[in-house]
């Protein structure tokens, strides 16, 4: 496989967790819930995916465990943010800290290890072999043989665009975000809509976690989300929530992370290649603010 195809394949693989988490955060973005807990939800999902997969020897059980954990985390977030009226930003930091501390503790307590848990008994996600696609020379190498969640994420991005802009739920979601009291006056319960948006973000973020620990690699390590939740938050802000925009930006970020992975085989110290996604985020914010300035000047 040439360098270019391996780079593109790595890009697609690296973009998936960011894409899934950003899609989750997209729902709360439209519902006007300032949700910064994707990082923590992802981490919890990654842990429980490994837990389920290891003890039941099945990636399906792992995924279900992760989804349940994502749901519970989302409910905790919603309980504080919606019903106790705690500041959303503070709740998000609390959830992230709980996720970081909780998974580190459980890693130690359940598996008896510090740092990372690796075992051949963790069953990873199956890789999809698409019959016709794999025969196409360049495209086949790039698109074929990824873990199943990669394809689900790509489809979900398009599905989310339809859901948000073409369905009743999407309309209510956006209306709640625009002005929650007005939606209440026409009979939509804004608390319930916000609750749903948080639940969806929990589910998507935990799927991102599943991909991290059962697809991208097959292990769980402390703080393995490593800022991907924050990057996905930056992406959402950059594209102002549009799902297809999120897809595009995630692919770009996946490309940079993939570039870092490919460059690890070169002489550049790995610490510098690992920095690439974060510097890319800063650069993207720079481009964004420049554009915004231009818009302000034009108007």
């Amino acid at each position, binding site marked *: 496989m040439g360098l270019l195809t391996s780079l593109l394949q790595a890009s697609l693989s690296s973009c998936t967790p960011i894409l899934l988490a950003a899609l989750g955060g997209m729902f709360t973005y439209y519902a006007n819930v300032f949700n910064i807990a994707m990082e923590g939800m992802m981490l919890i999902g990654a842990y429980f995916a490994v837990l389920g997969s290891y003890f039941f020897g099945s990636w399906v059980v792992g995924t279900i465990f992760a989804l349940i954990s994502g749901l519970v985390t989302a409910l905790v977030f919603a309980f504080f943010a919606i019903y106790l009226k705690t500041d959303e930003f503070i709740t998000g930091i609390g959830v992230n800290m709980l996720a970081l501390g909780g998974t580190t503790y459980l890693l130690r307590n359940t598996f008896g290890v510090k740092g990372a848990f690796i075992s051949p008994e963790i069953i990873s996600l199956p890789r999809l072999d698409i019959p016709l696609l794999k025969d196409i020379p360049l495209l086949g190498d790039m698109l074929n043989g990824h873990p199943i969640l990669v394809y689900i994420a790509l489809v979900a991005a398009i599905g989310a665009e339809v859901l948000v802009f073409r369905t009743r739920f999407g309309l209510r979601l956006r209306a709640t975000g625009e002005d929650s009291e007005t939606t209440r006056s026409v009979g939509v319960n804004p608390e319930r809509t916000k609750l749903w948006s948080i639940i969806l973000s929990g589910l998507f973020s935990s799927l991102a976690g599943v991909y991290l620990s059962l697809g991208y690699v097959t292990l769980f390590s402390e703080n393995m989300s490593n800022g991907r939740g924050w990057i996905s938050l930056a992406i959402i802000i950059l594209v102002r929530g549009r799902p297809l925009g999120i897809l595009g930006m995630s692919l770009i970020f996946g490309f940079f992370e993939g570039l870092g992975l490919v460059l690890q085989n070169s002489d550049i110290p790995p610490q510098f290649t690992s*920095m690439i996604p974060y510097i890319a985020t800063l650069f993207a914010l720079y481009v964004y603010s420049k554009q915004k300035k231009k818009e302000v000047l034009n108007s």
Partner: protein
Amino acid sequence: MKLLKRVTVSIAAITISFLIGFLFIKWQGNSPVQAFKALYSYGIGSWFSFASTLNAATPLILTGISAAIAFGSGVVNLGQHGQFLMGAIVAALLGAYLNLPGWLGITVIVLCGGIAGALWAGIAALLKKLYSMDEFISTLMLNFVSEYLTLYLATYPFLDPKAYVPATKVIQRSYFMHSFGMLNMSFLVAVVIAFLSYWFMRNLKIGYEFRMMGYNAVFAKTGGCAVEKNTHLVLLYTGFLSGLAGALLILGGTQHRFMKGIGANFGWDGVMLAIIADNGILETLFYAVFFGFLKTGGIGMEFETSVPSEFILVLQAVIVMIVVGSRSAIDYFGDRIRARFTVRKVVTD
């Protein structure tokens, strides 16, 4: 009255958190009584353990007030971790390669560490000034960059080949900060800085402006504060505090060198402290000592019982959630109940 309410809420919330911790330990099949006994005796039970608690609190005090001042001024500086690391690496390198007499050297190194943190936060300030980029994401991203940058420095150019993890050389003996009994001088430095910060936030014009920006940036601007310029100053000052925390950990801690993972969770701990303390500087100081107690006691707990010290990380997060949750719930539902009584009174009268 307000103070009394706050103290009561905090005490109640911490008690509830400990109860949850109690049940959690029991559920995990360990003895909670033994665990908490160990927590007490290793965290505060003797002069030795109390001094360890204060030493453990030293970096937390500074990252905590860094976050508290930033949040209290309406500046979302979440870059304590990165600023801390920059302060630590600069202090470690200067400590290893700079030749100055002891006291002067310590002063210079500590100040340089702080300045390194300030400069690192200054990048975010500069990006904000030139391109109006939000400091919230930029400080976060700079955390990751500094994590890898310092790791690179400790792995390649300044690696001590005798160390078993990536680490720089041990700093010169003359720069080790003195301990009184068990208590390291760096704790006193941190406390003095905390009180100085408190004083200047209360009594100087610039501190007043910072606080006004936290209450309402638009109002502050209308009243004549240079909000943009002050935001940059807040970033620089809070970066300085975090950098100072890193430098003090190198000179006054136990490792005396920069090594992989030395930043631990000090940055986020600081953010949590500011949140629990509701951005009050003296409250942050108090809670930092409390977190120091949990950390020191947690190690003792692991030593005596089979509850791993990571349990403290969970307990800390639970405390944060319950304290802020109950605070906001009491405010919100308290207002509603009061409003209902008022309505009833008006209606029946």
